[in-house]
């Protein structure tokens, strides 16, 4: 078994004490060029999302009609004075709108994952810890959610509650985030359950018990680090799915309400002009691509860095 030999190897062959899970992981992550690229992209996205309104050259809904008139009533092309990435057909600065879109994507990334964690972790933990009938019932419930058409659920929810205060929160986005979260916690719940089931029975937990390690130390040094990393990875890799879901919904006109625009709705707006003014589609598409790549690379890198089974190999 790979696991038991790793434990033995570590005991016998490792002369110096490991620096601890997190600094070890950081050391491995730092050596992974793709992961660092991902981290840089994620930090850029976070900065754009947080500082967006401050660094944006224009307000996202201000129309620079003069520039559009000067251009023969057509969208201003990129690299024009005053509009680095050009404007849309209404004279709204594309860079500023992209920055506002970044803010939407950052919010999606976090709100959805918080919803997923608050539902998925308790359900998975209860099922994995207690087992038996409770486990059965909870897992059958996840089957139902899994088979549920998430797109339909999200659209129905956002249409049903559009007029309420809940539906109006965050320009209509809050509802979409919660709806995406409500349909995507299943993976995390199954993961947590599987982790608990597997870890309860592992040889290293048994071995730790046998040599008299206290329960608390088993939990903090063995169960938590081993169980936590897959969840961190799943959460990081869940972010691009959430960003993708939000932009797809925005593309078909569900979610954020005009004049605000997410990257998906910018692409839907730009589709009509794509032949003459491809920048209206290409720049938002690049923004989505960079965000998706950033979180995917970071998630992959975290998985490699946090997976203790790979320690000492490669």
């Amino acid at each position, binding site marked *: 078994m790979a696991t038991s030999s790793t434990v033995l190897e570590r005991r016998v062959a490792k002369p110096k004490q490991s620096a601890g899970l997190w600094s070890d992981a950081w050391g491995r992550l730092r050596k992974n060029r793709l992961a660092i690229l991902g981290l840089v992209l994620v930090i850029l996205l976070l900065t754009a999302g947080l500082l967006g309104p401050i660094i944006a050259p224009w307000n996202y809904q201000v129309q620079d009609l003069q520039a559009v008139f000067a251009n023969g009533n057509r969208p201003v092309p990129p690299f024009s004075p005053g509009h680095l990435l050009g404007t849309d057909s209404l004279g709204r600065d594309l860079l500023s709108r992209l920055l506002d879109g970044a803010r939407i994507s950052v919010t999606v990334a976090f709100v959805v994952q918080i919803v997923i964690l608050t539902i998925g972790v308790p359900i998975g933990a209860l099922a994995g810890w207690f087992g038996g009938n409770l486990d059965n019932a909870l897992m059958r419930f996840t*089957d139902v959610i899994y*088979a549920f058409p998430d797109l339909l659920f999200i659209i129905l929810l956002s*249409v049903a509650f559009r007029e309420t205060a809940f539906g109006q929160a965050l320009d209509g986005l809050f509802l979409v985030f919660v709806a995406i979260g409500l349909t995507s916690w299943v993976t995390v719940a199954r993961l947590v359950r599987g982790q608990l089931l597997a870890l309860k029975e592992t040889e290293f937990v048994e071995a730790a018990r046998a040599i008299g390690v206290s329960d608390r130390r088993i939990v903090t040094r063995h169960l938590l680090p081993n169980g936590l990393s897959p969840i961190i990875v799943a959460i990081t890799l869940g972010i691009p799915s959430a960003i993708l879901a939000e*932009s797809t919904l925005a593309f078909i006109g569900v979610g954020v309400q005009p004049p605000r625009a997410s990257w998906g709705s910018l692409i839907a707006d730009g589709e009509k002009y794509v032949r003459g003014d491809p920048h209206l589609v290409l720049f938002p598409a690049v923004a989505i691509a960079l965000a*998706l790549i950033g979180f995917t690379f970071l998630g992959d890198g975290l998985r490699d860095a946090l997976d203790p089974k790979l320690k000492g190999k490669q």
Partner: protein
Amino acid sequence: MISYLVRRILWIIPVLFTVSIITFILMHSVPGGPWDRDKRLPEGVQARLNAQYGLDQPIYVQYVNWAGQFVQGNLGPSYRYQDRTVNTIVADGIGTTVQLGVMAFILAVLVGIPLGIIAALGHNRSPDYLSTSVSIVGIATPSFVLAILLIVFFGVELRWFPTSGWKGPQYWVLPTIALAGFPIAQIARYTRASMLEVTRKDYIRTAQSKGLRDRAVVVRHMVRNALIPVVTILGPIFAFLVTGSFIIETIFAIPGVGRYYITAIGTRDYSLLMAMTMLYAFAVAFMNVVVDVLYAYIDPRIRYS
């Protein structure tokens, strides 16, 4: 094994039941109704229409009526397309949607798996970088963006393929690629990771040390074992293909059933919406069973009881 299979298939029934109840309640809590038009119908007409279609009854009565008809295979009248029943709408479009999904699936498997194998065999050399770049593009490009780009380049500029309709094989090319892009990337990534994992296994070292040719090691020992975990992502990929077909069918004006899915919500076409939901839920739940059974079949270490 047989009893496991029967139990899993029977379990689909309560799943569908629960999904139908949730959808029914949500659907009827959405404001508005199927008779909303730009020009408002007179109150009396609306009331008579509601009475005729049973929409004036309490929601649980409506649900029981709907469920009674559903189990007999009757999906009800369409509120929007009043000359057609939902049965004929589904029957007309389902073939096209299934064809699109199957073609995209085959393309994703035929491109994704070799791409992943090539990347792993040339680990950290140019084949790996080439294959990884393809996966990155697939992951970073949502299917609706890929569809727009394909339409602009291969449809409008180069005029190689038509961009809307479904009248012959040349119409199939762009939608299939647009739908397969993301699954190709996912399958390639999983295959690559799984191949790299297998490379380190003891049985590969054994195979090499007993003098097997590289080719035999790769084909007989690595690939066959590496593909086992890849089967697990086929379920999520199938769900993606179904959802993706809604968007792709709308963009390419393909006469399948997927595009009704989104429009039925806007027009409050209750019976069509329920039919589409049940279709989706059945397809996803059924494919999950298929994937689990397939997994046990190709990996003899897994036994269900």
